[in-house]
């Protein structure tokens, strides 16, 4: 038996939990978080700004808000416009993206709008929206949609456009109808990139939801941030911000994990 064979056999053996943790880079992630916490702590201890709480104080505040339920309650309120807005963006965005990718007339009429929306600072429109829809839920939903829709639509469009023409030709050569081409070739081939677009759209949606709460009326997470800032309760304010950033990252990370599982078997271990 050569050394290569031995090597191969070792690889097929089921690795223990510890080995798997090592291989996934978990120790590095822990070191990375520890480094961040340390820098935070040292910065705070150097007294560079009175409004900069120590890392430990922030964690204590985070724990306190988790325990008394105020954080959960705020998150639930923030989630409401986010979820409604995202559902709308996904349905409309994916639909229009596919339509633009398949039909050149739809592309001609709608693509410039989405290109503009994606490159322009759409956040500037949020105050305008409150003119019309007031300071309630509707405005916040619109804010989420404005930020997440363009990314989702543009990615769906590009996904359809990126489908390999030879695959479509293959389907045609076996006398596949247009309908079969779309349902059996184009949509499956485009779905990984579309899903990636959804992930980016969700990240933008979070931005929209937070911005809406900060700009329109403080509710949910935005309310917690504004309130604790106004009473100079900085540890709590930081804890809220850390919590929302962390939550957004976890959601996006989860989507990324699902994406890897669904579409890229070669990347699975």
């Amino acid at each position, binding site marked *: 038996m050569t050394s290569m064979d031995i090597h191969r056999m070792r690889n097929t053996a089921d690795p223990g939990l510890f080995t798997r943790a090592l291989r996934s*880079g978990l120790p*590095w*992630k822990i*070191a*990375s*978080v520890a*480094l*961040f916490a340390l820098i935070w702590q040292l910065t705070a201890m150097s007294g560079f*700004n009175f*409004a*900069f709480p120590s890392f430990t104080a922030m964690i204590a505040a985070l724990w306190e808000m988790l325990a008394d339920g105020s954080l959960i309650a705020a998150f639930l309120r923030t989630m409401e416009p986010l979820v409604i807005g995202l559902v709308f963006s996904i349905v409309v965005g994916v639909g229009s993206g596919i339509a633009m990718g398949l039909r*050149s*007339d739809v*592309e*001609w*009429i*709608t*693509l*410039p*709008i989405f290109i*503009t929306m994606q*490159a*322009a*600072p*759409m*956040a*500037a*429109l*949020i*105050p*305008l*929206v*409150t*003119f*019309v829809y007031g300071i309630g839920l509707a405005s916040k939903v619109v804010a989420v949609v404005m930020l997440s829709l363009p990314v989702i639509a543009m990615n769906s469009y590009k996904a359809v456009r990126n489908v390999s023409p030879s695959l479509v030709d293959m389907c045609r050569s076996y006398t596949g109808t247009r309908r079969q081409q779309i349902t059996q070739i184009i949509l499956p081939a485009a779905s990984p990139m579309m899903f990636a677009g959804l992930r*980016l759209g969700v*990240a933008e949606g*979070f*931005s929209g*939801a*937070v*911005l809406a709460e*900060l*700009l329109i009326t403080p509710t949910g*997470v935005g309310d917690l*941030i*504004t309130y604790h*800032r106004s009473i100079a309760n*900085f540890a709590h*304010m*930081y804890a809220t*911000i850390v919590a*929302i*950033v962390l939550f*957004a*990252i976890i959601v*996006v990370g989860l989507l990324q994990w699902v994406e890897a599982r669904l579409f890229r078997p070669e990347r699975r271990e």
Partner: protein
Amino acid sequence: MTLYGHHVPKMASLIVWVILWEIVGRFGLVMLFPPFTEVIAAMGEVVTSRSFAEAIRITVISYLLGLALALVLGIPLGFLMGLSRTADKLLNMWVNTFLSAPLSALVPVFMILFGLGTPTVVVTVFMFAVWIIVLDTRAGVRHVAPSLLEMSRSFGASWSELFKIIFLAALPEILAGIRLGMIRGVKGVVIGQLLVSIIGVGALFSLYQQNFQMAHFWALVLLLFACALSLAELVARLEKRIQYYAGERN
């Protein structure tokens, strides 16, 4: 698209949308849209006002400062992550975190740390722009063809010569990162000023909002959009001129 055998330019459909906007505005179908002609009329007023010039000045200065900061810190950081595995493993998680995090949530922090003025906006622009620059620089450095470095080494090149090769080979990716960073930076400068709301275009926006001057508000939005789009277009063109040598990499 072609219509009756004539080629119709790509962005021409915007004219259709503008006409539609005018109709919607005239008949008051959607409250959000005042007639487009009114917006254009307001645009003249906005542009000639003294506060506009001041707002633009502050916006441009804070944008350029934030972007410069992002370049000066972002490119070396990307280089470090591309060259050192340890640095990459320690920092990659955070760079990716900040890349997809709702950065708007951080602006209130900047406001208490740096005050309600230009520094906060500068930091916001920096935070919006820097991470994609870091990540693209890192990718560019990572993807330098190993044979190019071996070639240089086989002739006995010095460290500075190798560094030059890495930089030039990574340049297309670095430029792509800068372009994306610039677009993100525009969003940063707008969001920062909206939240600070007492300086620059942010102050103008709140002024128009408080006085219910919808047409003025739209005029300012359109001006901002036009600036953002021309900037993106300009950088894309510059990038294409450099891209002549990027044709080889896939």
